[in-house]
């Protein structure tokens, strides 16, 4: 069983839902990322989504773009991100790590080279934001050969035919973008999320994570009652951005612990 499957199976037994925090590798600098990943796990993260910095993060809002810019100021690229995951794996063999980024850095490295190195470094899954299923069959094949999960996005506007297509290609979990818009947007319509998740579940057997627009414990709890996993990104990046380096770990830990306990209060039906 893969690390991602193991995590979801164990949560299911405990009647709990997954918390998936997102941080950008190299933000605020390259020395902080691995310690921050360990802190996230201690504070209650089940899976870590690690952003690969890119110069043109078109699908992200200003908060995550700024985190990418901070990382790029330290010249953190895909190779460095893989090194960070290998470093993290020295002390954590359990927590799945999913890389989230854009197509161009993986194309620059080469699909096959990337897939084999990522596997060696202990990466579990990869979400490439600007690779819709139609354009990435070869990419997914390389990922599968190396035992990496291909994670896909679904959105409120995804029609049924595409849901079926994603259902065939996706592994690990799928990531339902709960809002139209970019990361960091607000206004989450829980009724709409609930209806859409019911539709998704009739086609998709793997766990469904929900992200975009989750900014506090209350929303996290509400989403945990509907989805298998709660993804929180921009809110954590804001905390990193507004904290001094000495306070950063403490502030992020407090935030993630708060989200964890809110999610654990959710009434969970499996």
């Amino acid at each position, binding site marked *: 069983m893969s690390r991602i499957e193991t995590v979801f199976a164990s949560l299911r037994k405990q009647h709990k839902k997954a918390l998936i925090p997102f941080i950008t590798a190299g933000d605020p600098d390259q020395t902080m990322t691995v310690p921050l990943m360990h802190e996230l796990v201690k504070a209650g993260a089940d899976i870590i989504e690690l952003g690969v910095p890119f110069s043109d993060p*078109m699908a992200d809002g200003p908060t995550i773009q700024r985190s990418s810019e901070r990382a790029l100021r330290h010249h953190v690229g895909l190779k460095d991100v893989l090194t960070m995951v290998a470093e993290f794996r020295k002390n954590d063999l359990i927590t799945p790590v999913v890389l989230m980024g854009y*197509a161009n*850095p*993986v*194309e620059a490295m080469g699909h096959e080279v990337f897939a084999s190195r990522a596997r060696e470094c202990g990466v579990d899954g990869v979400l490439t934001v*600007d690779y819709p299923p139609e354009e990435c069959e070869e990419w997914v094949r390389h990922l599968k050969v190396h035992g990496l999960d291909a994670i896909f*996005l679904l*959105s409120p506007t995804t029609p049924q035919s595409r849901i079926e297509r994603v259902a065939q290609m996706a592994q690990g979990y799928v990531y339902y973008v709960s809002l139209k818009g970019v990361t960091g947007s607000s206004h989450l319509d829980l009724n709409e999320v609930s209806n859409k998740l019911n539709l998704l579940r009739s086609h998709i057997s793997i766990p469904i994570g929900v992200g975009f627009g989750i900014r506090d414990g209350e929303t996290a709890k509400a989403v945990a009652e509907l989805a298998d996993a709660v993804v929180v990104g921009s809110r954590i990046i804001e905390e990193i951005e507004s904290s001094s380096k000495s306070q950063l770990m403490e502030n992020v830990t407090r935030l993630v612990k708060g989200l964890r306990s809110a999610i654990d209060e959710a009434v969970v039906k499996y």
Partner: protein
Amino acid sequence: MKVYDLPDKRGHFGPYGGIFVAETLIAALEELRIQYEHYRDDTDFQAEFAYELKHYVGRPSPIYHAKRWSTILGGAQILLKREDLNHTGAHKINNTIGQALLAKRMGKQRVIAETGAGQHGVASATVAARYGMECVVYMGSEDVKRQASNVYRMKLLGATVVPVESGSRTLKDALNEAMRDWVTHVENTFYIIGTVAGPHPYPMMVRDFQTIIGREAKVQMQEEYGRQPDALIACVGGGSNAIGLFYPYIDDTGVRMIGVEAAGHGIESGQHAATLMTGRPGVLHGNRTYLIQDDDGQIIETHSISAGLDYPGVGPEHAWLKDSERAEYVGITDSEALDAFHALCRYEGIMPALESSHALAYAAKLAPTLAKNQLLLVNLSGRGDKDMATVTQASGLTL
């Protein structure tokens, strides 16, 4: 016989083009493709488009024989396709009218656009005013400073100009920001992309609207010169004016097609925007194409004296025309472009845009190597009034 029939159904030009966007944009692009493919063949739509091009833009734009300059250069005859005479002063308006008419039929009340030099922003603001739509233009804050007069023109036309502070604060960042706006407001908003880049159907749709340039040229050449030109020359940033001229000639393999990229301070300086000459294929802004990027796949800041050519990507159809060797791509430096700018002013009384000056500069290099009966058709894609500040600065003067 028509042989060339790209792109394919999913927008591919060989390995280039396609749709590389987040899932959140897929449905909007699909809606756009379906609507465009419908109206492309709709006689009312085409009739309105033709009427607007004639009566509002002032088409057809003439082909002008630059006789004095050709004589001075002492070789091939240089002919200019006068897109600079269009309403708003550049070829950009051909495309914005097409997209605005489509937006109207799709019931979108609001249009957004990205702009570098400001020409596409002005052309978008113009059609928004013409058809009574709200208009928001995204522009890198660096470009807002460089192109102050165009910013004011857009405001006069009723548009809101949003300065973009992220990244390198230029065209590519404006494009990122416009995409974000579109994702968020897709129900009532139409995104008017200004060049033949972006996800399918944009490269195809923008090309189709711009092919009026080449279609007119073919008729005019036959009528006025009794034959087609020996070579077509056009500047390439994203490449919309070039593809507009080239496309109707793709199957006429006797006609050379030459795209001129911005070599900035020189290719060897690393400060340029010559994507096809120096870049590698990758994925940016929704399509696969040549990109100026570093070893990590990060997009590198480009340089050109002309803001309209200052872009690290290029339209995917140009990437394909390069690989298939149907078109040639060459570079012209800032200073060569400036020389051509001054030459056209002095010898022909025409002030060209700095973008178009790149195409002119290559024509000036090529003409003396060819016989006097050869014909070079250069796309004079825009007029140079907008470039006064840049040219005076480059000449060490202040107004």
